[in-house]
Each structure stands twice: as structure tokens, then as C-alpha cells.
């Protein structure tokens, strides 16, 4: 089967009041052998731009459990204020649950500097997915290692992008925040292209 249907939330260009609407989009799986290693590496470099963007990497902070903050109003990137830790639970259950402020709702995000919200329990990425401050090569090697990517194939990695609503938020963060680069669809295309090319990782 060469075509897979992703039930995607189509992300509107972030106007202040835009709320994401449910829609289904088709994503075409690239044919085996259709992507060269070189093209795969180019795709990866765009994947890395997304993965290392604050909207993504700030919540991929590994065992520390401490999310990061960054953006125009915070100066340099810094640990989440308030001494927040998501703990081993990754949802802050040990201290303050992320959901105390990051409410589960599909109303979108409009108020500047308020806690971002999506329609799932707010949480940190698993500790193995420790990306923050990592190089392109390090993240790439993590992502193709089933031990550290949740036991996923590259197809499953792409599919996973569909399910995680926090991840969708990265492209529509609202409240004046800078979205992750490209779009969710382009990002999925890049992950698929990188996968078909054999998951090549940059050297050095």
C-alpha cells in the first residue's frame, strides 16, 4: 500500500483567533528507491530545523524533566520559570501537574504569555527523546534507534506525528509565539523522505 491517509488537523496561518479545524489530508508515501541518500540528508536537515526549534525542543529535555522557555519576552532560552519539573511521570504528577495551567481544551491559544493548551494532557516528551541542545547528528541517531525512539519504524515515526496534538500545536502555537518552521504536512513528507532514503544521518 503506497498511500496512507492521515487524519490531520489542518493548521491555519496563525491569526489571533484562528482555531484549528479537523480535516483529513492525504499524504503520499514516497516509493522505495525514489529518494537518494543526498536528498534524504536534505530532508533530514529540515527535520532537524523543526526538532531543534524551541516549539519542539523545549519539551524534549530528557531526564531533567525541566521544560525550557524561550521567545522574545524571555530573553535567552531558560528553564521554565516556577521551578517546574514534569518528573518521571512526564505530566508533573509528583509536584504540580502540567495540566494545572496547561488546560486540556480545543479552544486554541490566543492570549499572549498564557499557558499553551491543546486537547490532550500537557506533558514532556519521554526522557529518551532528549533533544534539547543536541546536534543534528545526535538527534538523527536517536530517532533511528528503536531503543530510543519508542521502538518505531520510520513509517511509525511519521504516523506518530499525526496523533500527538501537542506536536501539532508547534505549528500553531498562538499568543504571538513563533511557530515551528515549515508545516506539519511538509514535516511528515520530510520524515518519510528521510526514512525511504534509509534514515541517513549527517557525519560530524
Amino acid at each position, binding site marked *: 500500500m503506497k498511500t496512507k491517509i492521515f487524519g490531520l488537523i489542518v493548521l491555519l496561518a496563525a491569526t489571533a483567533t484562528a482555531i484549528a479545524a479537523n480535516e483529513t489530508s492525504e499524504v503520499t508515501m514516497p516509493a522505495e528507491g525514489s529518494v537518494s541518500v543526498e536528498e534524504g540528508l536534505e530532508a533530514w536537515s529540515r527535520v532537524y530545523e523543526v526538532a531543534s526549534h524551541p516549539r519542539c525542543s523545549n519539551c524534549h529535555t530528557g531526564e531533567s524533566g525541566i521544560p525550557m522557555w524561550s521567545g522574545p*519576552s*524571555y530573553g535567552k532560552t531558560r528553564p521554565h*520559570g*516556577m*521551578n517546574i519539573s514534569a518528573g518521571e511521570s512526564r505530566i508533573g504528577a509528583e509536584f504540580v501537574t502540567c495540566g494545572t495551567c496547561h488546560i486540556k481544551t480545543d479552544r486554541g491559544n490566543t492570549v499572549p*504569555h498564557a499557558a499553551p493548551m491543546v486537547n490532550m494532557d500537557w506533558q514532556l516528551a519521554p526522557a529518551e527523546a532528549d533533544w534539547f541542545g543536541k546536534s543534528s547528528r545526535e538527534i538523527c541517531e536517536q530517532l533511528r534507534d528503536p531503543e530510543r525512539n519508542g521502538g518505531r519504524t520510520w513509517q511509525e515515526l511519521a504516523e506518530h506525528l499525526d496523533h500527538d496534538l501537542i506536536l501539532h500545536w508547534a505549528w500553531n502555537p498562538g499568543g504571538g509565539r513563533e511557530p515551528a518552521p515549515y508545516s506539519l504536512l511538509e514535516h511528515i513528507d520530510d520524515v518519510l523522505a528521510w526514512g525511504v532514503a534509509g534514515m541517513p544521518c549527517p557525519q560530524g
Partner: protein
Amino acid sequence: MGRVAKIARRTFLVGAVAIAGGVAFGYYMYRRPARNPLLDNLAEDEVALTEYVRIDGDGITLITPRTDLGQGAYSIQAALIAEELDVELDQVKVDPGPPSPAYYNTALSEEGAPFRSTDEGFMAESVRGVMDALMKFMGMQVTGGSTSVPDGYQKLRVAGAVARETLKQAASQKSGVPVEQLKTARGAVQLPDGSELTYVELAPIAAGIDPVTRVALREPAEWRLIGKPMQRLDILAKSTGTTDYGIDFQIDGMVHATVKINPHQGSELNGFDASAAESMRGVKGIYPIKGGVGVVADNTWRAMQAANAITFDWAPAKYPEQMDGHWEALANSFNEEQIESRDRDDGDVEIGVAEGNLIEAEYRVPYVAHAPLEPITAIVKLEDDRADVWTATQMPRFVQNNVAKMTGLETENVHVHVLMAGGSFGHRLEDEVVKQAVEIAGNMKGTPVKLTYSREEDMIHDFPRQIAMGRGRGRARDGKVDTFDLGIAMPSVISSQMGRQDFSLPGPDSQIVAGAWEQPFAIPNYRVTGYRAPELAPVSSWRSVGASSNAFFHDCFLDELIHAAGADPLEERIRLCWHDNSRKVLEAVGEMSDWGSDLGENRGRGVAFCMSFGVSTAEVVEVTNTEDGIKIDKVYVAAEVGRVVDPINFDNLVKGGVVWGLGHAMNCEITYSEGKAEQTNFHDFEGMRLYQCPEIEVRGLENGDKIRGIGEPPVPPAAPALANAIFATTGQRIREMPFNKHIDFV
């Protein structure tokens, strides 16, 4: 009208509790007349025994005219009255009372007069007396300047004693037992036969007799309350969510309003388009007011949503649009023409600095918001013949006068009801919110309008602490600090603040050099010069006012000179200090912190001293330089206050002051871009959070003759002690707040 009230109106008045003399004999005499404001609003069967004690059929109410901003003023004032009145705190209610000249603040003026708190000489006292008269004239019923305790310490106890002795007279009249044989306790007069007459039943009789006007105050050894741990009267309500703050107060038929005011503080509104807001749910009216727009709705959130839907054309700022312009104005103020004061000029600094080895440093302190957690609010109800204002204010008399002026009503028809404040730190010394509520309420006579600021509006219109610059020149010689010359430039806070009240105080603004010029150090060549910078962004008194910036300049520069001298920071301060009680404070903090002991690797300590509001305060800060930045481990504080009225409240206020001083020094500033404050909420104006809070050890010293307030004095030494500790640990001198521009904190 009940008989009692009639009698009370006619006869039973003890006037403005002015102490007229006789102190040497341990007696206090009271001038009678003046006007007891309680009489104007006495209900049936109420009696006013002095303007601080009101008794009715239900019990005893103590009037505590200094606003409770969180500092526990109501409890402390009540305790001072109760000590002499012989009532227990669980027997009384407290009420802030109405605005009245009878409640003027005599202690506030002390800090405004250009004499050092250490100078108890005749001249100083007499000038304070002049200022006192001025304050009385203006009727400044103001809460501020750490004065609630010094101001009330005698007059509240005296008020309690006058009421007690008068009640004893009444009991004597009723029972036939001579006064000398009567005792008092727990709100009752005790007869020799063991029976009791309660104050409540005696009040009607007391109202009919001449009050006792000559009383002796009890010796400290006899005190039941003062100096012992007390339970704050408000602690149960504040732990159960049942305190009505200004923002919580509700009145039948009340509507909810908010405002949008020109973010260029003080500039006009050119125009606005409210078409999108008018049709929003719950919106009842949108009204232009001075410098902005008021939105009235049936719910605060709806008013705020509608306000956000309005577009504005604001007039530009009258002060520099960018920070560069503010700093340039300060830098340009260090010249002969702008000298405001040079009251400290010992030896000859010019000779000192001419001899070489000159050390120079420039320090900067930014604007900082007060940002109490409760945004400012006011409820105003206007009618043809009266106005009512419910608000948490530090200056009810100003509010009353301003509302009278705006409405054309006589001041006696303006009723100001002071509510509990969710913090202030000086913020509620401004009454713009009341004036705006009056403007809005003028559109709907008879309807109470509650105006609530959004956090964002509050933050950008905060009237922040002054911006300031300090320039030090000095020299060490033979291992000692020899020459110290500090210039301080800032705009006049007092002039900015009082300007908004349409009057000016005479003489130089003492706050420009407060916390610096009057420090008790005997440096051979020692000069402090204040330079008045032009008015910039409007500013206001911020917890500890001038000393909040000046102690940073003064003490950090002293630390630099001591370092240059190769001397120990604490030892050299002690050596230089000529004032016994200040030296004891330095010695105490040295002992508490085990100064000189080894703290281990990557750790260090710094000390700082400041006398402000008459309180000598020394603080030692210990820090660790961790991989994640500076961690503040521990703070030791010693403060000389003459008398600690309530050790628990004292401890809590001192710790709070340290947290305030450290937190703002670490990470807070208000900066202007395009004339608008860039910080809008607590995400970019954080202060200290719990995890950053060090352990704090507090000691109150009671060597001084005068009792002092503690709300502000712990603030000034905190920032320099931290900066000095960071230097001792890392070798890095931080000369600019907030410190996180230069170093990370955990």
C-alpha cells in the same frame, strides 16, 4: 437618635490626641476639642470614647486608621490600644475609620526633614516639629514610610488609657466605689467585691461625663501584649478565603468596569474606535475619560474583553521613548546646576581623590513596578448630594478631597470606606483608579461602579520606582577607606507623586540621597551629593523609596573601597561606624553569620548596611556559585527598631522585605520602548519565587530610644549584600540591577 448617641455628640469627645506635655512626669495630657470624626456617623446606641474607641451594644470597636496593606497594621494598632484599654484582641472588632484630620500621621514627616535619624539634637527635633505642623495642616492620614508603629506607639496607647480611665470614672459613678479601688481587665471594670461592670454597659454613663485627660502609660514590665507573640486578627479570614479585599467587595446593583489608559503614562487620548466593543455581550457603556476609555459591563471579564476590542490613537509620550534617553538624562544631571543637596561633606574629597589610586564606578538602578498581587480597584457610587468610595488606599484624605473637587461636593459628603489591600508596597499612594471610577460613575448616577484594572493595565501604569544612577570616586589609604565621594542622580519621586496631588513640598527632595547621605560612617573625606534629574517617566514611592536605590550605590561602592584597602568587609564597616546602635547591628549580624568562618568551595558571603527610616539594618548574604548560576543560600538580618511590638509580625515583615529586595534586584525592571512599558505581567516581571528563597534568620535589636517601623528598612541592604556576596564568591562586581543581566541565578 438614641439617648446615648445624643449625649455622645454633645459631650463625650477627646480630640485629636495631641500630646501637650507632662511627659517628664510619665503623664500625658490631652487637648480636648478638635473634631472626633466618629461622631458624624454614630449609629443608635453607639458611643465614641476618643476617636479610636467606639462602643455599642454589641461590643467594642477599635479604630485603626493606618491601612492594612499586608503589614498587619490593623492588628498592631489594635494591640497598642488594647494594651491600655484592658481588652483582649479576641473581644474587639477593628475598623479603619473615616478620613479625618484627627488621624494625621506625625511620624511620616520625620523622614522628610533633612536631618539624619542619628541626629537627635535640638535643631533636628525642632525642624521635625515644623514638618509635623505642616503634616497636621494637610491632614495627611497616610500609611507609608514605615510609620504606623512609630506614629501610633504613644497616641494609640494614650487613647486606650483615656478611654479606660473614663470608663473607670463611669464605674465609680455607678457603683459609688472610689476610682482608686477599681481595676480593669478583659473589657470590664472590676469592683473590690469581685463583681464586674462591662465597658459596654458603662459606655452610656461614660458618654455623659468629662473624659479623663491626664493619664500615665504603663511600664513595659506590665505589658500583656506588646513585645509578645500575637495572633494577627486577620489570619483566620486570610487562611480561609473570607477576607473582602477591595477587588472582592460587592454592593447591590453594582456594575463592573475596566479601563484602557494611554500606555505613554500621562499623555492624552487622541481618539478611539469602539465599534467592535459596543455590541459585545454584557457591555453597558463605553466612556472617554482622562487619558483613556472606561468600559462598563455586567461582569469584569466582559468589560476586559470589550476593552481589548477597542482600537486607540494615543498621544506620544512626554518622556524619552527609549531607555537610552532616560539614562542620558541621568548622566547629564551630574553638574553644579542640578545639585539638590550636599548635606554630607566631611573633610575634603577633592584633596583625597587628587592623591592617586583613584577608584571610580558607576551604578545603575532601573524603574521597578510595585505590582501588588491584587490589581488596583475602586468602587464609586455618585448621588446628587453624596459620593461613596470603597477602595484599598493608603491615603483616604487625599481620595476624599480629590473626589470632592471632581464632583463639587463638600468633603464631608464624600464617604471613603477603606478596604483591605492585597499588597501595596507604595502602589496605593496613588489614586488614579478612584478618579477614573468617579469619571465613569458620573455617567450613571446612583449606580455603584466597580473599576478593576487588568494586570496588564496595572503593570504598564504602575508609577514605578525611580530610575537612578550613582557615581562613586574614592580611595583607600594605609589599609583603610579614606575618601568616599558619591553622586546620585534621579528624578524627584516626591515631586512626581505630589505633583499628581497638585501640591509641592518645600525644600530639597530628601529621597534623592536617602539611604546614602545619613549613613553613620566616619570616613575622613566623605561627601554625598544629590542631583535632581529632570522629570522622566512618572514615578512613585516604592517600598523604601530613595534608599531602595541609594543603599545599593552607597554600600556597594563602600565595599569596593574596602576591597581596595585590603580590609575585611565587616571589620572595616564596624571600624568606620561611629553610631553605637548601628555598630551593634553590624556586630550582631557578624555573630549570627559566624562571619569569617570557612564556607567551602564556590561559596561566599557579603555584608551590607543601611540606615533608613531611622532603622539601622545589616544583612549578610551567603551564596553558592553553582553550574546553573548563583544560588542564594542564607540571609542573616539584624535591625535596630527600639522596640519589637510583635515578634511574629516583625519576623514575617523582615523576611518579606529581604525577599522583596533580593527578588527585584535579581530579575525585575520596567523598561520603556516607544514610550510604553515593555513588561506587562509576571512572566517578564517575576520577582522571587519560593524555590529561590533563602533561609532567613532575623534578629530585632531594642537598644534605641525611639520605636521604629520595619516595613521598609530590610529592603535597602538586601541588594548590596547580594552583590557583595557575588563579588566575594566570583570576583565579579555587579553594578547594575537587575543582576540577571550580568549573571545567572538558579
